[in-house]
């Protein structure tokens, strides 16, 4: 192993000696994207004007000792397609969507915002234990989601309801998760908003911040291999969402570094909304946002106006294509926005930021109103349609809400399933006891709330339990 490495190193060095032109040609990128290998050398070339050590190629020697620091002046620019008035500013590109598709995007964003209002109130009324809204950030989720393939796996943080809704998760599926009903795909084992769906290719949200990032790199590595093995199948990427606060975790750095070194097709989509609970970005990091870190890790990076749904879409489309080029590579999108609401139902953000700050943002800029202005200018939309849409969606959400409220709880057997593939003797005994107890004291136990009453327990007792659904997939 070690010998081989030295030999390859030598060969690399010889190649560099022999073909200075080729080396020169690489100067822009420094890394050959095909072979993804640096030119390495065992020794510094005498008289060279640049460093040629393995750890830093093509760095010019200088006699000026200068410490570099990003200043506000060289902050990475923010890509915009629409301005705050909904006017197209990137005139070189046209929107690649039919009116119908644009309307769907609009509808999805409004759906999320209405659902959020109602579910936030539901928590306040004690109907659910917890909720997190994505107010102000609907554009990031819906815009990026519109550019992904439905089959691209998604790793979300928790404020990306727009991704699920745009992918086809119904309002009712989402609300059922929050209410932990029998239709909750997680069988009532998670907090509200911790959504996941195999059908929608959405990994279940994890409470522990940033853990999804290295996992996304790993999933992308799996996709890279699958893409290579099956070049005629749809080529997929992983989309991984996270907040600027989560990006302070070591996991973020590990994820970017390994995705870059292993060339994994993953889109890191950072929602930079200015806050992590009470912590403002100034206390979270210094330097030019999250984007500058992507550049540092050798990752193609772009900063986008997250309140501009078309900009999000275009950036994600291009990023996706880039991520699939040359055998795969990671791309980082930093989407700038503002967290309009409290962090969660457990937070009162006016304890750490002024109400006027929030009101100001709400008034000044919002992804939904921006798109609305765009559509109105093209006579695709008007006050009347707006009213109808909002009232229709409100009805739809309330309908799903009322239905979920009345839904049964997950089947009783769920208390014990999904731990072992086959029931253990102890579990069977416990279930037998549950059954005996419930049947002996029917007045004490109301099983009508649970899906199928005692049926699910009987099924397991009769040996019909087939193991967790994962066991059936592969």
């Amino acid at each position, binding site marked *: 192993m070690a010998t081989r490495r030295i030999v390859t190193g030598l060969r690399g060095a010889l190649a560099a000696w022999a073909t200075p032109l080729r080396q020169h040609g690489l100067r822009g990128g420094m890394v050959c994207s095909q072979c993804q290998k640096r030119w390495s050398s065992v020794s510094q070339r005498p008289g060279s004007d640049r460093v040629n050590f393995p750890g830093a190629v093509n760095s010019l020697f200088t006699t000026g000792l200068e410490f570099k620091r990003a200043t506000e002046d060289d902050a990475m620019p923010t890509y915009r397609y629409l301005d705050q008035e909904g006017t197209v500013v990137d005139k070189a590109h046209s929107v690649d969507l039919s009116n119908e598709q644009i309307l769907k995007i609009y509808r999805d964003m409004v759906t999320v915002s209405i659902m959020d209002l109602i579910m936030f109130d539901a928590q306040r009324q004690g109907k659910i234990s917890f909720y997190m809204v994505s107010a102000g950030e609907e554009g990031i989720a819906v815009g990026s989601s519109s550019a992904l393939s439905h089959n691209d796996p998604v790793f979300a943080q928790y404020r990306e309801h727009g991704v699920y809704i745009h992918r086809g998760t119904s309002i009712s599926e989402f609300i059922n998760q929050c209410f932990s009903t029998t239709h909750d795909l997680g069988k009532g084992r998670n907090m509200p908003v*911790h959504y996941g769906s195999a059908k929608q290719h959405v990994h279940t949200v994890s409470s522990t911040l940033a853990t999804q990032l290295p996992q996304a790199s790993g999933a992308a590595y799996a996709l890279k291999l699958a893409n290579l093995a099956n070049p005629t199948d749809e080529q997929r990427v992983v989309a991984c969402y996270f907040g600027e606060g*989560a990006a302070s975790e070591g996991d973020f750095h590990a994820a970017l570094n390994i995705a870059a070194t292993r060339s994994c097709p993953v889109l890191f989509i950072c929602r930079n909304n200015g806050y992590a609970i009470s912590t403002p970005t100034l206390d979270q990091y210094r330097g030019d946002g999250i984007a500058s870190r992507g550049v540092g890790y050798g990752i193609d990076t772009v900063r986008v106006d997250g309140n501009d749904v078309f900009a999000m879409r275009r950036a994600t489309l291009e990023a996706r294509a880039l991520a699939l080029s040359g055998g795969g590579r990671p791309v980082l999108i930093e989407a700038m926005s503002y967290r309009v609401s409290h962090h969660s139902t457990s937070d009162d953000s006016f304890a750490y930021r002024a109400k006027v700050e929030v009101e100001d943002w709400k008034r000044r800029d919002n992804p939904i109103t921006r798109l609305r202005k765009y559509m109105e200018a093209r006579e695709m939309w008007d006050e009347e349609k707006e009213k109808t849409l909002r009232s229709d969606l409100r009805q739809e959400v309330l309908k799903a809400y009322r239905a979920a409220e009345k839904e049964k709880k997950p089947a009783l057997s769920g208390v014990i399933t999904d731990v072992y593939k086959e029931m253990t003797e102890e579990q069977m005994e416990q279930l037998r006891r549950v059954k005996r107890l419930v049947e002996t004291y029917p007045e004490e136990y109301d099983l009508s709330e649970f899906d199928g009453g005692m049926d699910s327990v009987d099924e397991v007792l009769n040996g019909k339990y087939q193991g967790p659904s994962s066991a059936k997939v592969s």
Partner: protein
Amino acid sequence: MVGSRLARPAAQLLRSSPSALPRSSFQRVSAPAVSRWRTYASGSKEMTVRDALNEAMAEEMEKNSKVFVLGEEVAQYNGAYKVTKGLLDRFGEKRVIDSPITESGFAGLTVGAALAGLHPICEFMTFNFAMQAIDQIINSAAKTHYMSGGIQPCNITFRGPNGFASGVAAQHSQDYTAWYGSIPGLKVVAPYSSEDAKGLLKAAIRDPNPVVVLENELLYGLQFEMSEEAQSDEFVIPFGKAKIERPGKDITMVTLSRCVGQCLVAAEQLKSKYGVEAEVINLRSIKPMDVEAIVKSVKKTGLMMAVESGFPSFGVGAELIALTCEYAFDYLDAPPIRVTGAEVPTPYAQKLEEMAFPSEQLIVDYAAKLLKV
């Protein structure tokens, strides 16, 4: 409300309007029942566990300029659970510091500060998130003194809520006592009452070694008596000394943290129902452990049960029973038993969650079985 605690702080906000809350973390907690039958000596006063912890930090920071607090949301937000309330105003931003969200990062930073001679208090929003930092705690904080040949002490206090809260699901609801208790080089304490909280935290801050203070969110809001002695700024509780919370002659209950309150209620019920006297030992300190107190009690009662809220396998209960068998086997009249959390990822559903941890009734039932009453 309570369900949210985790993915968020501001538990305070919720507590101000309990009627709106679907769950109350306090309804199942037993301490108030305990104070009912206690008469207070003059000069004592009531204080919440939260305030006691706060007072401990404030006093030690006042006394020693090397002490500082670092963690997520500890300064401006007064702590996710408001334990550091007022400290920023009082001691300024050099000594009460908000960290970016990076547990391994700020734990490492505090370890480094301790190695450089400061006395940091490292607050974890919960010990669930300390798993991100566990290498710093175990491989660096706990071992450096030993591995440096005894020249490099690490005076650091790791603290925060441990154990299950209420309605925050499996990833937010775990008890790490056994994890830290198994590490040579760490001291580990688990306060129950306000006196415990103040005395143990102050001792932890003063101790030249790394100490892990495992608090409990469900205890923060509970009021306990603070004796006149405990109100003094010189009050510390020595490590390795358990407290007999209730003397008894018929059965020994060895327990810690929130389970102490539950055992006290259970003991009261055992007395009224069966006329038996349970002795309740509040361990206070997990490592070092007061084996002597257990042995002494078992000599008297002949029966021992361990009550704790961790997972059953390889847990605190297992350790307590092993120690009892090693040191007091000849005094046992029956095999010792343990009441622990259930062997499942903590359920989110409220009723299941309740069933996943020891309840007062469960403790009574198991004690009665052991007592054959």
